């Protein structure tokens, strides 16, 4: 019994190790990408001649990991500040490039049952509003937009990545959350309320080459190509 269990564990370990050790001729490409980029990057990554491994998380989480020595080929950030931190740390092989833009939208339940029509409505008493933490790019942008609109919101929670804000609204736990327009486009489970230009913030998405391996350059070129830009636009992003 114990011997069988040990053999099973050994077998599983060997098999799973092989997945992580490069045994095929296909190279792997490791991308650290802002959580909001998952829908377009999953599609773009399928088109390269490599096995993609993409770590989607809050830009600030990825930045911390990279500074602490995490190995990746490409870093895609949802703001310029964190990309600058990575560049200043000397981790980039070439200067970063802006590859997309995003705008903020208010995510609400399907059909907008609470009748939310702008940022000012988010201050209403009894409304459960969730934002991203100010350390997250989306949270920083949300704070800027609310400041522009002169609205003070008492959030119910400060999530650690923008996709968690979206989830809370999609699950019905929050009445509203400030997310990216692209999040609303890809979610399909929430409605988006537009924020006028005068109050909105344009998020710059930057991509940086960490390893300078051929696959890294191939992926970045693809993101910047007409094909990559079309996928980003379909996912609700603005062109570079």
């Amino acid at each position, binding site marked *: 019994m114990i011997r069988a269990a040990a053999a099973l564990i050994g077998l599983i370990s060997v098999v799973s190790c092989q997945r992580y050790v490069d045994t095929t001729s296909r190279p792997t490409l490791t991308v650290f990408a802002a959580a909001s980029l998952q829908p377009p990057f999953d599609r773009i990554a399928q088109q390269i001649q490599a096995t993609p491994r993409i770590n989607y998380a809050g830009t600030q989480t990825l930045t*911390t990991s990279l500074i602490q020595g995490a190995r990746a080929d490409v870093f895609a950030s949802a703001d310029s500040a964190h990309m600058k931190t990575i560049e200043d740390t000397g981790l980039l092989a070439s200067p970063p490039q802006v590859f997309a833009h995003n705008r903020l939208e208010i995510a609400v339940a399907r059909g907008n049952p609470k009748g939310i029509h702008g940022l000012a409505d988010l201050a209403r008493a009894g409304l459960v509003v969730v934002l991203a933490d100010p350390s997250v790019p989306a949270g920083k942008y949300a704070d800027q937009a609310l400041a522009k609109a002169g609205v003070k919101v008492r959030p119910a929670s400060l999530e650690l990545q923008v996709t968690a804000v979206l989830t809370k609204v999609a*699950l019905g736990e929050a009445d509203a959350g400030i997310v990216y327009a692209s999040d609303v486009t890809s979610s399909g489970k929430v409605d988006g309320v537009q924020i006028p230009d005068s109050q909105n913030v344009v998020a710059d998405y930057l991509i940086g080459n960490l390893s300078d391996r051929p696959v890294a350059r191939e992926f970045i070129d693809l993101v910047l190509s007409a094909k990559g830009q079309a996928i980003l636009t379909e996912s609700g992003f603005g062109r570079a």
Partner: protein
Amino acid sequence: MTQARVPGPLLALAAAGLLLFLLPLAGLVARAPWDQVGPALVAPATLTALELSIFCSLTATAAALVLGIPLALLLSRTSGTLRAVLRALTTLPMVLPPVVGGVALLIAFGRRGLAGAPLYAVFGVQVPFTTAAAVVAETFVAMPFLVIAVEGGLRALDHRYEEAARALGAGAWKVFLRVTLPLLRPAIFSGAVLCWARALGEFGATITFAGNLPGTTQTVPLAVYVTNETRPEGAIALSLILLAVSLAVLVGLRDRWLGAP
């Protein structure tokens, strides 16, 4: 009596195992910016998280005592399949990844949840994002530690005392209060301390179910995670607090865990 020697290769492996435990702790202490630890400790943000953590973990432990001791009693007095099922249910949160627990709690007690939807419809109460949610998450994850300890105590109990009390005419309730409970004191104490320590360290279920808001649901482990991405020295200071608490628990329970050869 001479002790048998530990074979060389096993000794080397044991040393490697010890290093795995010791190195991260040594790193935490060595890398701690000691001049900044003091100010970081009394920073309002730290104190808020600490205060909340103490409140939530103590409330969760109290809830675990009130619900867990009867549960342990029930476990010790059932047998067969029923007991196996009850036992599996009680211990499940110990082996379940806490984040899964958080998702499950959200689905049960959320506004559209199994129990949460009627709660919201009738009383207008929403559990997620409240301090109560943080307490529920901690209780969910930590209560099994208390139940297991108390059940162990019940099984080791000399039941003749209870029988004697019954023979002298005491009712079931009186026997429980005056005989069983006092005899269980050591098991309840160590179970409660373990439960409290686990509640204090809870992260996954809390952030998933209760969210993250300073002063409401951001307990120390959540604050450590968030601070590590903006002010690593603050995260180290907070981690040192939790490390000190863990050591204190270990020392406090040394008779039960380390001593008694």
